[in-house]
């Protein structure tokens, strides 16, 4: 199935909408992209070299004779939370 088919079905079902959002202006693209992305100042937590595999972290901790620090959240701490 391709999207065009889905859209046709959607239109056939009368899924209408109001005023559309203004198109992104090409001359503003780069500035907007930079504005939205994280900047270094707000990414301090990434100064810590977080691993994302507990088993690999165990191996590293054993070989380096260090304890493990686990940041465990419902939703990945480095992802969408």
């Amino acid at each position, binding site marked *: 199935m391709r999207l065009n088919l889905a859209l046709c079905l959607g239109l056939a079902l009368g899924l209408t909408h109001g005023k559309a959002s203004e198109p992104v202006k090409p001359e503003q693209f780069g500035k907007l992209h930079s504005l939205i992305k994280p900047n270094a100042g707000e990414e301090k937590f990434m100064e810590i070299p977080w691993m994302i595999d507990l088993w690999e972290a165990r191996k590293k901790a054993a070989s380096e004779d260090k304890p493990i620090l686990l940041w465990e959240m*419902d939703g990945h701490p480095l992802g969408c939370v």
Partner: protein
Amino acid sequence: MGRELTFADAKIIELVNKNFVPVAMDDWFQRRRQDAEGDFFRKVADQGPRKGQGGGTRQGIYAFTADGKLLQYRNSQDPEVMRAFLLNALKSWGTLSPADRSAARAGIPELKKIDPRYVPTLAKDTLIVNVHARILEKENDFFCHGTCKFPGGQRASHDHLWIRETEWQALLPKSPQIGQEIEIPANLTYRLLRFHLIDNTRGEPPMWSRNEVRKAELKLAVSEIIKDEVRLKLTGAILLSTDADEKIAKRGYDASMLGEICYESSKRKIVKFNAVVMGEHWGEGTYTGGSRPGRAPLGIALELADPSKQADRVPPQAIRETSGYYEAGK
């Protein structure tokens, strides 16, 4: 919050980097895994207060040895509390008996089997695209960073769009011609819209259901060919709303998209995937309260990830149901 408060603290960063092996995990997966890693994690957590009764959360911050002896547990975002936590963990580490310390250095066996239900696997040649959302405000003829009462809600969010090899290959015409339009696989379009054009600036929001995609007029066309490099222009008009009549929808996003995908024709390799989605978002989810009143600008930026960075390989939030994620158009 942990990003904003705890792990943005200079002293905490220094303590962690010098003394610990840091690892970040999603409890939703970890507490459910029925394999050696899941057993190990539960064994560690069971030594603390969060024993996960009834399948409940075990989230928090744990310090423990490689063989699973818990040194400290806290679930706090207060930097002062966390500094004390780290120092106490190091004290416990320093006073381990010689036998315990030796056990902590023992080799870790290979993980032979994993529970595929709760370990999202990044297939070879999957294209990873970083997706960041941020609240914005209008300023003169442009925008500036928005403000929000929710702590950390003004910051850019993080998620990752996974695109299967067959899907991204389908975006690259073999004999490109200027103006040629390329059909985007429906599952990819719906995946992008349903799971990645979300306001996740205050935590995990509800994803869009398939029938909440009210408009998805995406167009991908060859815009330029410079020697071996082919540039594709991505444009789109998008409406996502909880009701077919957006005026009464409790939650919605009315947006436009502009982007550029570039690939090397001979190697069939995508070298750039930049896009911006800009529009007005309104409403909030059960766990993402504190949104701004009414409709307000929300920007979403996409760019190629760097798979060599562990943080860029974190699975998409919506992949908790793998087939649902990849087959978003069904």
